[in-house]
């Protein structure tokens, strides 16, 4: 069973939940990221996700390790899909189980924020009249620390 996974196939939310279910868990929190149609007034027709797969899975495992340090009783699984996704299709599923509910909310939120910082996955928005890689690539977004925040602390 792979807890941290990049896949080209549709994601089953239940399958990700099943990876973290265990007898000591009293809560399972899930985050499901889906493809949004309207972004800043522009209508997306589909998204294309691309990943540096081996490193992306490694970074997802790293997020799992960070969660294990902060919430030792948590069990976490993350699956991120790549390829072309239509409106409302599931791009990412995170499941975190913990003995009590508060920790599961916090750890799940932590996981999605970290995905957006340290995991090499990119999405390209396709519209009826064009397309653009998200992340302001080659424009004005950069990492102020020269690398994702906190990344250096975990090496």
């Amino acid at each position, binding site marked *: 069973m792979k807890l941290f996974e990049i896949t080209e196939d549709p994601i089953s939310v239940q399958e990700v939940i099943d990876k973290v279910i265990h007898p000591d868990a009293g809560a399972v929190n899930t985050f499901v990221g889906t493809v949004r149609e309207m972004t800043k007034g522009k209508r997306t027709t589909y998204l294309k996700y691309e990943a540096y797969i081996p490193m992306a899975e490694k970074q997802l495992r790293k997020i799992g390790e960070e969660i294990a340090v902060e919430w030792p009783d948590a069990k976490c699984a993350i699956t991120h899909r790549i390829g072309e996704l239509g409106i409302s299709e599931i791009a990412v599923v995170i499941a975190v189980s913990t003995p009590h509910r508060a920790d599961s909310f916090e750890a799940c939120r932590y996981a999605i924020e970290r995905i957006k910082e340290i995991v090499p996955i990119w999405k390209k928005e396709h519209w009826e009249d064009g397309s653009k890689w998200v992340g*302001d690539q080659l424009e004005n977004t950069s990492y102020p620390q020269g690398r994702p925040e906190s990344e250096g602390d975990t090496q």
Partner: protein
Amino acid sequence: MIKVLLFAGMQERAGKSEIQLDEPHLLVSEIKRKLENEYDFPQMFTGCLAAVNEEFAEDDTEIRSGDVVAFIPPVSGG
């Protein structure tokens, strides 16, 4: 042989996902300069990180033959 991987917008701009360099060793910064010249693309690496063998690296990280260098533009997963 050093293998260089490009992704997303950089890959489209360069027209390829993988580049092989014959040098036995180079710094990350030297690879950047080399590719910027080759593709006539001065802002190619703005905001971009480097990863060596799947770990984030710095400009002065030394790359040896057999290493895999990936350039990571700002990520947008989730």
